């Protein structure tokens, strides 16, 4: 690798007139190299191995050794309706959860930006869902909260004429998205709150002096100021939520039927139930490519929308 070649030349003694020498530059970088090499090893080598597996026919439940089978795995991915279904559900889950969590997060942040008695307690309480381990939270939702016979939600809704709704059977996708929103609203709120608190008080005072109402102030000043924060929240939220696995595994196991099988859970099933290592690797590679494409377009779109508003 270039790193080694760069280190190899004999030491140069004379000091160059401007800036620092190549060698010195490398000496400065040297302490970082172990971390860099480690990162390359643990991220890129597994990726190359996955690529290699994706061109193999390799099943754990047959004694036949792995063998090359061309693009058959990729062909199977694109012709499989289960993959397409999982893809669509992943998109629906991520988009809905991120948008709703962001809207709720902005509302809560605006609320918490005001001074009132017990604000810090309320803030801590609101942040709690994000601090709970996702699997633990999902189990609590699946059991004590949403159980059709003993669940708290049904008990609370009983006075309104709701009787023994089997949330995880009849509204499975909605229930999983609800828990995702519940978990991620505090995160969105924290980021937006940071934005709100960095807003200079003078600007708001000036708006007040000019006679702007609360809503106009929010629309014209606060919201544009929050733009990068909201953008960051949406980006981070999307990256995490597209990988949601805990809630699906603990609450519905992808069911009923395939109603809540998203891409990560579909991949898991391909390895753990079908033992199709080649197919799972191909699915993984396709997923990465699609994620990058979609994310690129989503980011460009967000950027354009916000720039338009700014102008």
């Amino acid at each position: 690798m270039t790193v080694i070649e760069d280190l190899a030349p004999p030491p140069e003694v004379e000091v160059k007139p401007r800036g620092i020498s190549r060698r010195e530059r490398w000496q400065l970088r040297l302490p970082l190299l172990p971390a860099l090499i480690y990162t390359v090893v643990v991220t890129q080598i597994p990726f190359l191995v996955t690529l290699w597996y994706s061109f193999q026919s390799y099943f754990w439940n047959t004694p036949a050794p792995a063998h090359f089978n061309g693009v058959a795995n990729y062909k199977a991915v694109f012709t499989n309706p289960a993959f397409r279904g999982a893809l669509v559900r992943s998109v629906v889950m991520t988009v809905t959860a991120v948008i709703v969590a962001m809207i709720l997060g902005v509302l809560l942040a605006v609320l918490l930006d005001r001074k009132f008695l017990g604000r810090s307690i309320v803030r801590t309480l609101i942040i709690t869902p994000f601090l709970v381990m996702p699997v633990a939270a999902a189990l609590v939702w699946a059991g004590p909260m949403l159980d059709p016979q003993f669940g708290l939600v049904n008990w609370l809704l009983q006075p309104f004429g709701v009787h023994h709704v089997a949330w995880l059977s009849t509204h499975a996708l909605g229930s999983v998205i609800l828990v995702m929103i519940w978990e991620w609203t505090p995160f969105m709120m924290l980021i937006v709150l940071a934005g709100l608190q960095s807003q200079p008080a003078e600007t708001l005072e000036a708006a007040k002096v000019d006679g702007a109402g609360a809503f106009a102030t929010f629309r014209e000043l606060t919201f544009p100021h929050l733009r990068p924060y909201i953008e960051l929240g949406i980006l981070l939220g999307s990256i995490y939520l597209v990988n949601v696995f805990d809630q699906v595994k603990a609450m519905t196991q992808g069911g009923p039927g395939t109603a809540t099988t998203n891409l990560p859970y579909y991949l898991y099933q391909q390895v753990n139930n079908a033992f199709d290592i080649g197919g799972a690797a191909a699915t993984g590679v396709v997923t990465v490519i699609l994620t990058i494409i979609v994310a690129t377009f989503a980011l460009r779109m967000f950027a354009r929308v916000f720039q338009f508003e700014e102008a």
Partner: protein
Amino acid sequence: MRNPPVRLRALGAVGCVAALAALAACSSGGSSGSSGSNSNSGTVTVAVVSNPLITDQMIPLTNSKFAKQYPGIKVKFATYTEGDLRAAIQRAISTHSYAFNVVMIGPYETPLFAKNGWLTDLSKQYIASDPGYGASDLLPPIAKSLSYKGDLYAVPFYGESSMMFYNKALFAQAGLTMPHNPTWAQIQGFAAKLNQPGKVSGICLRGLAGWGDNMAALDTVVNTFGGQWFDMNWKPQLTSPPFVAATNFYVNLVRKYGEPGAASDSFNQLLTLYGQGKCAMWYDATVAATSIATTYPDVYKQTGYALAPVNLTKSSGWLWTWALGIPQGAPNSGAAWKFVSWATSKQYADLVAAKYGWAAVPPGTRTSLYNNPQYQAAAKPFAAVTLESINSTDPEHPTLHPVPYTGIQYVVIPQFESLGLTVAQHIAGAIAGTESVSQALQAGQSAASQYTAAQLSGGG
């Protein structure tokens, strides 16, 4: 966007990491155990399913009794749920990583693994030179289901068929009598009369997607309605009239008179519901009787037992056993057999009885247990019907019409692991109401049709 390139690169890296989670799962599973030919020492790692008879009895007894008897052998347990256990064992055994010296498997895996040369021939290797083990005492259908070419490749820890549990008090209240050998039509009639929405479900049935979950119960209904997975030419039969009729019957029964949210219920959930008196009837594994007796004494007093309901066949119970096998080539196999033979021995029953009572003894493996007067007395309500259920099963001829496969609630082909799950998911969808029965079976039929007859028969 001020600086898109940086973000895109970051995204790419995140994506790579995400995809590789799958790979990490593929390549984990190291090796364990030290070498050593002495069968009285060494570490034995055992992969087990997290059922009450194992977590509440086998593990504590191993730590107290077995450890005292064989101080040189260190037994470590890895407990999994059923689905995760299969994946962990499949991974360890097919990649020859020897992560486990002993694996808990069933009649589905044993013949397939034995055929691939993945399991130690227990009959030849150990039982032949260990007359005290008493292999002839094992219940014939159970022993047969764990054999390949006449030799045992796994030995049973507990065995089960399926039967009907019912609440005698509710039956008496409604003026109904459960026959010893009911038909599904009778069961439907009872369920309609006993169902009180919001209080007691007429019947509790499995709906959770899994070939060992909802499909186990449904397959027995399919078999007795005259249906089958494949015909003699390995043509899938999921859309044939008997299969459709059986599935419609099962789905309608559970949707009309079953527990709410059935699509997420399997053995453990239903045991809790039944134990809390929320089911007038419950069709499930015979081994549930042992759990009801030890965990829910009040409901146990009210519980009656009947054989698995039938339609066109004479009997219809499934057959399953959780059995212990030793992977071929695993280290410390001598010590592993010491543990396997101890946990499946006659003496193990005595140890359980001394600590937890006779009713708690793992059922369904040995004739001697059913001849034991103490067990007969303690497990009187359910011992005879359990034995009758197990003995009336015939995995070699599971269906009304001849089939090219064996297995009652599963098909002994490697593809079934994946195919069974796909069909199970669609059936769960039909139970939840997200798709119709005919859509579910169409999807199942096309999933089964992706395999050629040659692929399927090669595995049988």
